[in-house]
């Protein structure tokens, strides 16, 4: 089941919007941002954790990277899908960089991927427990679980996004499910 939203724009119109934004057109930049920020934010927040304080920063980097890479957008996918690819890579980059930094300090609390939230905004108990459960997974397991089980990407698509082989993705997903099934997710019953 494909859960990625598609904007009702022709590929040519999308490319035009992106190139205009890249060229400095303010209106186009704002339109690009507004059309895609929700899905980009959702992808980044799912990988890093909703309460992660770096989500906003990574989202911003995604759009700036999109402007930089605009000439390379060849309409092989929709603009939204292309942006989600950038979002996935940027979020993974951030998570990996953080892991490297975290090796040199002790972690008292793990929320998301090891960074305590500065202003938690817990809205729903079930969602909070879901986020904590995801935090029990490794970055690699969490990524494939979010992209496949939650967002509905095929393994081929995830391979395109992450560069990881399909058999490895299968193994990671299996390990993720095994780990999650062993948790007591009481609020999700």
């Amino acid at each position, binding site marked *: 089941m494909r859960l990625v939203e598609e904007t009702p724009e022709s590929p040519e119109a999308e490319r035009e919007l992106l190139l205009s934004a890249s060229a400095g057109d*303010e209106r186009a930049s704002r339109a690009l941002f507004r059309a895609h920020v929700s899905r980009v934010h959702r992808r980044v927040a799912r990988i890093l954790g909703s309460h992660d304080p770096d989500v906003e920063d990574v989202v911003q980097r995604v759009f700036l990277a999109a402007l930089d890479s605009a000439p390379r957008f060849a309409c092989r996918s929709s603009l939204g899908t292309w942006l989600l690819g950038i979002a996935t890579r940027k979020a993974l980059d951030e998570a990996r960089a953080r892991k490297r930094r975290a090796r040199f300090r002790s972690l008292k609390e793990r929320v998301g991927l090891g960074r305590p939230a500065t202003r938690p905004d817990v809205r729903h108990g079930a969602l909070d427990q879901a986020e904590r459960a995801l935090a029990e997974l490794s970055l690699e397991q969490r990524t494939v679980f979010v992209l496949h089980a939650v967002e509905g990407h095929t393994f081929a698509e995830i391979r395109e996004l992450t560069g990881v082989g399909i058999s490895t993705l299968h193994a990671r997903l299996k390990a993720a499910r095994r780990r999650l099934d062993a948790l007591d997710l009481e609020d999700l019953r």
Partner: protein
Amino acid sequence: MTQPDSPSERLAASLRDEPPALDEVTRLRMERAFMDARQGTSEPARRGRGSAFVWGLSAGLAAAAAIFFLWRTPSEPAVAVVPDAADLGARVERWTRGERVEETPLREGASLTTAEGERVRLSLGLTRVELSPGSLLVPERLRSDLRMRLERGEVSVEFNPARPGEEGFVLETVSARVEVVGTAFRVRVGADGSTDVTVEHGVVRVSPLPFGSVRRLVAGESLHVEGRGHVTPQEFVAPSAPDPRAPPGVESPAAPRGAPVPAVDAAVVEVDEPAVERVAEGEGSAEVPARVAPAARPLDADARFELARSLTQRGEYQGARHELYAIVRDGSARARARAWSLVADTRERERDWAGAGEAYRRASEAQAGGVYGRTALFALARLREQRLHDDAGARHAYRAYLDAGDTAPLAAQARLGLCRLGELTECPPGQEPPETPPR
């Protein structure tokens, strides 16, 4: 093969049903940062791979950013490149002869005026600014620290920042600057350029312009600043506190204007200092504490609830909320939940549905699983369903309420709500969801 009811599948379903929320304020903040960053670099490669955006700017980028900042800092209030009210999360409502008309757009730097018989209310989060007829207000800054200029007329301000002590509000007139941290006050500009400031709740600082020593006013105090920026002692009014035992409609006694009062400086010295609670280091402003009791005797939570109830019955919703916010800051979980619910009630009476929803949400979080928290959850669900037309949010809130158990007092009502929203398949006759959802 994955079992559909396995914990991992339920987790996946839960995450699909509840995608990470992107509230409007966060979206606007990100958009603003993106638009600023888009213009703020001079290199095609705007960011290095893996480099942190906020930290670690190179000297070259720092210089470019500084030049960019100087260019963007306006000498006059900016009018070009500004979002409108909806983008900022601000709402502007206008009333003409008592009739509410459609919302009007709001732009930073653009004037808000009211003619005779008109009133305007500006809402920013939980902050409210109301213009009386014949006023002219210029909102110079509507983000985090608010800054406005009152050219003529009168405004009433109820300032309730999301982060007390960290966000400020500055209102300037031709003769005075009024700075607040969290309070309710009135400011009037006279035809001669004089300024009258009356504090209803909380604490404000008033600086006569162009040069004048800062005056600190607490609830019940007023100050008159003449058009040339001098403070006249004769107009100083001694503080008074509302009498909770007073019947509705009876104003609390206050020192009459013109009564013999000492000079301003002496009066300031003689004023009873409010019970100021020294905040912990790093919390709130050291100069203006984030938590200040009113000039009257300190009230415990029960007294504040009683006072808030009385004020609500008299239609003094701002005053009621001030008492309730004091409980929210210092009370137990149960008291906070109850206080937030009462705040929501005052908002509903003002037909401020979004504000009511936010207050119910906070109540449900303040005492998750408790009596007041659960009741607030049900109220939130009902509000979302009937006033905010947020079906998904209503379904979630009803479900969360029912998670407490079928013996919850309003469980049957919650199930009926889910029926109306098409969530349940087995509904009592007449409670099935209509084919066309009503609006």
